[in-house]
């Protein structure tokens, strides 16, 4: 049996068992969170199904994202100019999804800098991010056979304080004049300060964040910006690993289901307003 179908079969068995368990009074289960439970399970099964299919050899298409294509160009430019690459993985800790994504993308950038023998500078603002970044950069340099080019100081701590960190990174930019600046992670008000300084030194800048309030600043001051989910899919795009590509496809399907739900709720709510049906959708979807 194909692995995708296997996932569906197990999910079906689990669903039947759960329905029986629920029908018999569902002890130890918080009934108020049924909607959330169904959503988590549906999304997980969708993603697992496509991961299994991708691992089984099914071809998954991923559209071109200009910002990601520019990664290679940016590192190549820095190499040609004999200057360094600056990578900022945001200002938050590893408990933020964006920081995790930023550190994973750092691994890909580090592979490029190792291959091109270009200097990489990664100032960080959290101790755990520093450790994780060092690990991933070291691994990247080893994977392309250049452990001799790696040193711990490539990834260095500045400070936890938001604007002190921004001032420190600005100072690095002005003194080292990197040819390429990457801002990939979770950012707050320091985003424009960093991007403006990078712009003033003429560096090619690629930003990526899922913080909606900071995207406009990056769009204004950077050459390329990965907005929202584009940034979170970057690792799948850069690595082309089947499991990651499968998860992107699964998330797309999740979005499609959400879109259908939005249209349905919008129409049915209209019927509710007209008094044709008696279901309060606001209450139905409320999770406690």
């Amino acid at each position, binding site marked *: 049996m194909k692995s995708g179908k296997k996932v569906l079969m197990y999910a079906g068995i689990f669903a039947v068992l759960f329905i029986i368990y629920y029908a018999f009074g569902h002890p130890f289960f918080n009934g108020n969170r049924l909607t959330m439970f169904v959503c988590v399970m549906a999304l997980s099964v969708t993603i697992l199904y496509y991961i299994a299919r991708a691992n089984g050899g099914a071809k998954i298409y991923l559209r071109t994202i200009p910002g990601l294509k520019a990664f290679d160009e940016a590192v190549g430019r820095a190499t040609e100019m004999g200057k360094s690459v600056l990578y900022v993985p945001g200002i938050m800790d590893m408990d933020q999804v964006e920081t995790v994504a930023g550190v994973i993308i750092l691994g890909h950038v580090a592979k490029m800098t190792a291959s091109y023998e270009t200097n990489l500078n990664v100032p960080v603002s959290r101790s755990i991010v520093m450790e994780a970044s060092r690990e991933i950069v070291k691994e990247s340099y080893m994977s392309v056979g250049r452990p001799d080019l790696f040193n711990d100081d490539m990834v260095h701590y500045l400070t936890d304080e938001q604007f002190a960190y921004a001032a420190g990174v*600005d100072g690095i930019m002005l003194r080292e004049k990197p040819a390429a600046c990457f801002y990939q992670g979770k950012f707050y008000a320091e985003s424009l300060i960093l991007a403006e300084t990078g712009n003033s030194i003429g560096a090619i800048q690629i930003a990526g964040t899922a913080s909606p*309030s900071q995207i406009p600043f990056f769009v204004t001051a950077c050459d390329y910006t990965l907005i929202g989910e584009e940034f979170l899919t970057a690792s799948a795009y850069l690595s082309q690993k089947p499991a990651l590509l499968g998860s992107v496809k699964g998330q797309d399907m999740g979005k499609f289901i959400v879109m259908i739900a939005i249209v349905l709720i919008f129409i049915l709510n209209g019927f509710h307003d007209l008094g044709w049906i008696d279901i309060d959708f606001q209450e139905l979807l409320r999770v406690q």
Partner: protein
Amino acid sequence: MYTTEIIGAWFAVFLTLAIFSFLYKDNPFYKAAEHLFVGVSAGYWASTFFWTQIQPNLFGRLWPKLTEEPSGIKAAWYGIYDFFGWFHEGIFPGGGIDKGHELNLFYLIPFLLGIFMLLRLSRKLGWLARWSMAYVVGLAAGLRLYGFLNSNILAQVRGSALSLFDGWGTAINSIIIIVGTLTGLFYFFFSKEHTGVFGKISRVGIWFLMVSFGAAFGFAVMGRISLLIGRFYDLIQFSGSQYYHATYWLLALIVIILGFQAFRERGRSTEEA
């Protein structure tokens, strides 16, 4: 007016003007302020973390204040505490830490994970730090899944239950929100090529996104202007006679020194040419 307050005002003015001097170019004043800011804040954060998290929330739960004389295993446990207290009584005061917590040995897990992080300094045991990192990342992923599903998916779907029959204005607003949400979601489809009808719909989504980014940009710039006004307010206040005209004196000093430096650099570059 106290002398310390006046000195503080002069420092505040100097550091503000030093940071503002970045608008001219990188210069010794900016460098001084930057290094001071980075260094002081790093030290401040380390100290704050220790005294607001590690000491009260971790040690305070492992060795809370004793209400009676301990015996057996508990006495041995507090023996370890007394040993630590021998090194630093401020961190480990006699009889336990009084922060209103009960003894909770589950906190040995974060204590151990913290020690693993410190073992990064050891070449042989550095690999243990990966356990701590894996714990943080894994825990965050699990916790965030629930939060994101609730706020980004269910709340969004719930929010689409918009009214169509509360007048024309409301109906148009509702339709714009629904069209914006759906076309925006179309743009974030990655496994399908954005061509034909799909491409046109996703382009509408980009317009919606750009309009929202523009609005967010304007809003944030207004916030920044209010921060700038705050700094100017302080500079104006410190230019008064009770602060011995700190702003005027320091502004003049910085301008003269930067002007002199620029003049020298210009002379040097002319000589080199």
